[in-house]
């Protein structure tokens, strides 16, 4: 319903204050996660003397570069718990933030193209059901019924052998989500400071006591890192390491089209995922570029392969054109699960490693990270996602397990 029209462009949703000389907590990074964290710190923990420092402009990182897919059909219990909690928050946030950011529960389909895919998918549907996550297995004719433009015949290299389907999954308008959080943060007294790059940290022994920025030094009792692709750079400034590799991840859109694509289709095997934005662009993404990169751009062959896959699956797309392509910098971990918790530096906390799929997690990242920053202890949802898991071996291996990378 709410997805039928675009709201008017808002003018000023937040102030642009000068940084104060001290705050009770400083959040580094004004993407979705930083903003959501600040919001829950203020709302749930009464911490309103806090600032979000963003080196560029608000949501100019991955937040407004992602393909906005929201789903919770992850395999493992720990992931299903945190992503399903996020999905439940997505369902109430438009009202809570008083902002219609076009959250559209149009469903997400994850295609299976091999016998291995089919078995893995059915297993995941079973695991999802046990975890209270809505999930169904669809046969090819049901796939066709839900998304008539999909080619489910066997005249392609990797025919569609079925799909998992999560009806409550969908998309939202990412920049509006950032604005919605930013406006509420601002109303609650949070200072959102753009063009403010953190260049170092002040420490008293092992404890962080302030941040150095291009706009002066700011004293603070607590620091929360929400820097996505730049998490390793900030950790290095603070004197510790993270098990993160930063990769380029690209996406693209076509020109505007009449509504042709009613749901979201993802294929891990032929590596493309597609939805149609409210305005009408076909929005497509694929996997990361293999090499480490901070350049916010990747190699063209990745786009070429994803287009080949898209045209094979959706023959009518052959008439569409690539209008814009872009890249973000995603912070990947070895087990494809995030890190939300404490660090070796006292009073410094880290939220990172959401990699190619952290947009959907934004509300739960904010909720649990705020809890951890405010109380110094993990929320039960982020407890398994600690940095220590790489030492204990309690990895949450969603690589391949969680349908696709996003």
């Amino acid at each position, binding site marked *: 319903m709410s997805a039928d029209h675009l709201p008017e462009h808002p003018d000023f949703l937040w102030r642009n204050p000068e940084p104060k000389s001290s705050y009770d907590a400083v959040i580094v990074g004004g993407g979705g996660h930083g903003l959501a964290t600040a919001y829950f710190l203020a709302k749930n923990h009464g911490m309103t003397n806090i600032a979000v420092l963003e080196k560029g402009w608000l949501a100019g990182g991955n937040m407004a570069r992602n393909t906005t897919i929201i789903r919770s059909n992850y395999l493992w219990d720990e992931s299903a718990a945190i992503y399903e909690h996020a999905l439940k928050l997505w369902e109430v946030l438009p009202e809570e933030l008083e902002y219609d950011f076009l959250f559209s529960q149009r469903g997400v389909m994850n295609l299976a193209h091999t016998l291995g895919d089919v078995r893995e998918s059915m297993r995941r549907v079973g695991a999802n059901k046990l975890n209270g996550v809505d999930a169904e297995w669809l046969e090819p004719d049901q796939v066709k019924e839900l998304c008539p433009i999909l080619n489910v015949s066997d005249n392609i290299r990797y025919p569609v052998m079925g799909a998992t389907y999560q009806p409550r999954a969908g998309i939202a308008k990412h920049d509006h989500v950032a604005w919605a959080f930013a406006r509420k943060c601002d109303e609650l007294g949070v200072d959102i400071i753009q063009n403010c790059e953190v260049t170092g940290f002040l420490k008293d022994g092992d404890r962080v006591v302030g941040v150095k920025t291009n706009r002066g030094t700011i004293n603070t009792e607590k620091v929360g890192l929400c820097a996505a692709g730049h998490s390793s750079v900030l950790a290095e400034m603070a004197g510790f390491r993270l098990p993160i590799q930063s990769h380029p991840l690209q996406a693209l859109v076509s020109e505007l089209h009449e509504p042709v694509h009613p749901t979201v289709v993802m294929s891990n095997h032929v590596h493309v995922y597609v939805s149609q934005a409210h305005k009408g662009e076909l929005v497509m993404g694929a996997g990361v570029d293999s*090499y480490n990169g901070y350049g916010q751009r990747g190699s063209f062959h990745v786009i070429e392969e994803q287009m080949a896959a898209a045209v094979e699956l959706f023959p009518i797309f052959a008439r569409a054109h690539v209008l814009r392509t872009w890249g973000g910098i995603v912070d990947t971990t070895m087990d494809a699960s995030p890190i939300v918790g404490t660090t070796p530096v006292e009073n410094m906390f880290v939220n990172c490693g959401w990699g190619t799929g952290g947009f959907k997690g934004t509300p739960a990242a904010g909720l649990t990270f705020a809890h951890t920053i405010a109380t110094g202890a993990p929320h039960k949802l982020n407890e398994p996602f600690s940095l220590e898991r790489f030492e204990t*071996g309690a990895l949450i291996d969603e690589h391949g397990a969680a349908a696709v990378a996003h």
Partner: protein
Amino acid sequence: MLLISCPNCGPRDETEFHYGGQAHVAYPEDPYALNDREWAEYLFYRDNTKGAYAERWVHSTGCRQWFNMLRDTVSYEIQAVYPMGAAAPTTTAQAPEGASK
């Protein structure tokens, strides 16, 4: 698309290669002496440098040999290609501070 100069085959498209991540990560000399923290470092922690980065590549669809490369992770400029086992060449062409957004 990167144009990578294989030491054996010359300049070839990136699609002929596979990435091997950080170079010069030695297997622990005495694996039995490592504690959990050290194992974690060896298995899961790699440098994630913004700037000149020493990394491994393999020419999978060509000579199938591994080699090392020094590449800027911001500009993606390839600064040096050198054999496995050799030390990373020192370079003055570090990425300028804050060169990218």
